[in-house]
């Protein structure tokens, strides 16, 4: 370990000038911010921020278009999930929190569908691998919602019926087949 010392110069060892310098910096911030706080109260210069604080529940920073929020499953036009129960997401999930029971679909072109599809968000680490693995544009994490707290583990088990009803957050949508929305102009991943 190297100890880096700094011997005070004569001027510094008087403290006084250094203290005055420090006080000047802090009071400059105080006066500047106070000026704009008062100006805001009078409705002037609303575009100049007087503080860096974001008042969270009322104000939020815009989410990145790649932000991974709660999962959702894209629906077919008839409202059934697009998932074909290929098990890729279940396999890739590093914490093994997706549980799928596959069943035979009456439509021979589709072959399989999930009889039950559950995501246990108590274990999910929000890595987004399931979203990337899905081959049929079914599983997305673009709802822009945080997981909500629940009173029981049951509350935190997201099922197919619920996942399919979720909507993508406008502007963050990553699927070309999102329900009710046309295709996006920009690159869906925001790249």
């Amino acid at each position: 370990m190297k100890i880096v010392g700094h011997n005070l110069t004569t001027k510094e060892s008087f403290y006084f000038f250094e203290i005055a310098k420090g006080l000047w910096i802090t009071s400059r911030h105080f006066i500047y911010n106070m000026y704009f706080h008062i100006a805001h109260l009078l409705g002037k210069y609303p575009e100049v921020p007087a503080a860096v604080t974001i008042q969270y529940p009322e104000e939020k920073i815009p989410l990145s278009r790649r932000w991974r929020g709660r999962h959702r499953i894209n629906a077919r036009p008839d409202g059934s999930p697009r998932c074909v129960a290929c098990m890729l997401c279940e396999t890739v999930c590093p914490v093994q929190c997706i549980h799928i029971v596959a069943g035979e679909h009456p439509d021979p072109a589709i072959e399989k569908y999930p009889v039950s599809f559950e995501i246990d968000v108590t274990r999910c680490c929000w890595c987004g691998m399931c979203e990337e693995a899905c081959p049929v544009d079914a599983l997305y994490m673009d709802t822009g919602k945080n997981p909500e707290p629940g009173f029981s583990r049951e509350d935190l088990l997201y099922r197919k019926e619920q996942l399919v009803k979720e909507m993508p957050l406008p502007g963050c949508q990553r699927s070309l087949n999102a329900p009710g929305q046309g295709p996006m102009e920009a690159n869906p991943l925001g790249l």
Partner: protein
Amino acid sequence: MYLDVIITLLKIAIVFGFVLNVAAILSWAERKQSAVMQDRIGANRADVLGFRIFGLFHPIADTIKMLTKEDWVPPAGDAFVHTLAPFLALFTALVVFAVIPFGDTLHIAGRDIPLQIADLNVGILFIVAFGGLGFYSVVLAGWSSENKYSLLGSIRAAAQLISYELALGLSIVGIVMAYGSIELDDIARGQGQYVLGVIPYWGIVAQPLGFILFFTAAMAETKRVPFDLPESESEIIGYFTEYSGMKFGAFWMGEFIEVISVAGVVTALYFGGWQIPFLSNQGVFIPGLFTIPLPHLLVVLLQVSAFGLKVLFFCWFMLLVRWTLPRFRYDQLMAFGWKFMVPLALVNIAVTGLIKYVF
């Protein structure tokens, strides 16, 4: 006779009303000011029926919280002394205001009312004595807690307070020499003179070094950053570790009251007390040129509000210092007190004496 008592009680009510309200507001101002200095917004969430008024409900919320919390006395500790200590802290901080003059003598209905609660002729000694007594609250709190860390904290605090008491007392000597009185009223009146006819002869003009020394030592007495080793809210264990509820709140309020009393003493000694430059009993005047007469009541009112504003300014300034500087290390603190402040205070006395002798 009765009228005198009533007038005194009225003065006490005014002064204590001012001090206690400002102390409560200071606890709000400390949060808000530090926030504004650091580009934040600060506490603004306590609301009553949706009104937030910039977080001014926080002091009330704090008080309710403190009053309803459990008041716990360590079973092995001394319950009486443990309870006494916070009251002592409050008392010693408050009683200083008894001798601080907050205005010139008020002539009303044929009476002369000095705007000072107690016109003691040893005002400065009174301040120093009660400032020194504050040290008992610290020691008793640590000792009666029956906790060795509290005791160590209180010993640390006692050493600091005693060291800086010395520098504090010595730096006041300069002021006493400059104005030739230990009566605060006389000193405030003496600051109404002018040097070279234009510069107000305030304490800071007469004693610039003395002012810096006094202010530093007084900040050390209030036990706030950069001298907050006695309590060190965040890391070292201080003397009020075993306090909870409103007794802790009393220490906490005592600290703010000490800030105001230091601001009051600094104003009275070094910033002209209630004097406003170029405003005398006759009215506004430019020395040697002209005088605009003003009614007596208005002059007194202006002077009292000037005193209040100066006190508020110093409260602001002390919060500014508190949120700017980092804390001293304990050896630095002691070295600074004994090897820097005390010799400088002695030099200040010597130089003041020399100047007085020459002129």
